[in-house]
């Protein structure tokens, strides 16, 4: 294949990558969050009294002693 051919191929691949990126980005944002994962956020009422130190929202002793 000639150099021009490679150039066209490379540019089209780059453009395709941009398109794939944008399409997957938009699709990712539009896909609804699966059930049960709606609020992966800290729940103050439940978390403050829980002592499970493996939970990613466990505050532990670093906050206040």
């Amino acid at each position, binding site marked *: *294949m000639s*150099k021009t051919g*490679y*150039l066209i*191929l*490379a*540019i089209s*691949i*780059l453009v395709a*990558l*941009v398109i*794939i*990126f944008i399409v*997957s*980005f938009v*699709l*990712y944002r539009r*896909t609804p*969050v*699966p*059930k*049960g*994962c709606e609020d*992966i956020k800290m729940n103050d009422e439940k978390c403050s009294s829980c002592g499970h*130190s*493996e*939970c*990613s929202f*466990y505050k*532990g*002793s*670093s906050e206040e002693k």
Partner: protein
Amino acid sequence: MNTFIAFLLAIISSMLIDNVVLSRFYGICPFLGVSKKVNSSLGMGVAVVFVIILATVICWPLYNYVLVPAGIAFMDTVAYILVIASLVQLVGLFIKKYSPSLYKTLGIYLPLITTNCAVLGVAQSNTDQGLNFVESLANGIGTSVGFLLIIVVFSCIRVRLESANTPKAFKGLPIALITAAIMAIAFMGLQGLFSGLN
């Protein structure tokens, strides 16, 4: 057989001797940010391993068979970041749609992987150093498993640190960085590991 042993040695050397976090300084942000809990750092580490290996497998042929023959090798950074970012989005999309349980554990970390230096760093250094495909793959596997190892070990230490009585000025990040320094010194001891073989 010899190439297989060389492959294994390359993996171990980029995993331990030239560890990604402690001596090459890729991926410090997630290393410090995520590693407070063992579970979450394990999730992050596994996701990084997956993305780095896939990115290596895609980026190397893209550079050597497309960008170099076309004479636009300087576009490598742009191409790599596009590959990595779309990869992360596609994997995220797949997980979000088909595996809610995986999404629950990995979901919040996926967007962070795009901006993890380790992924782009591996892809870029593979081609900058002119490694061949097998060496690149070994570098990718070694680096990512090294990242997983270090982030999990570090989170185990940090769990203990939380309850330790550190000076007030050192609470939080400073003491974590001191811990990382001590780990880096420990890993320096591995530097002579393969010197007898050559």
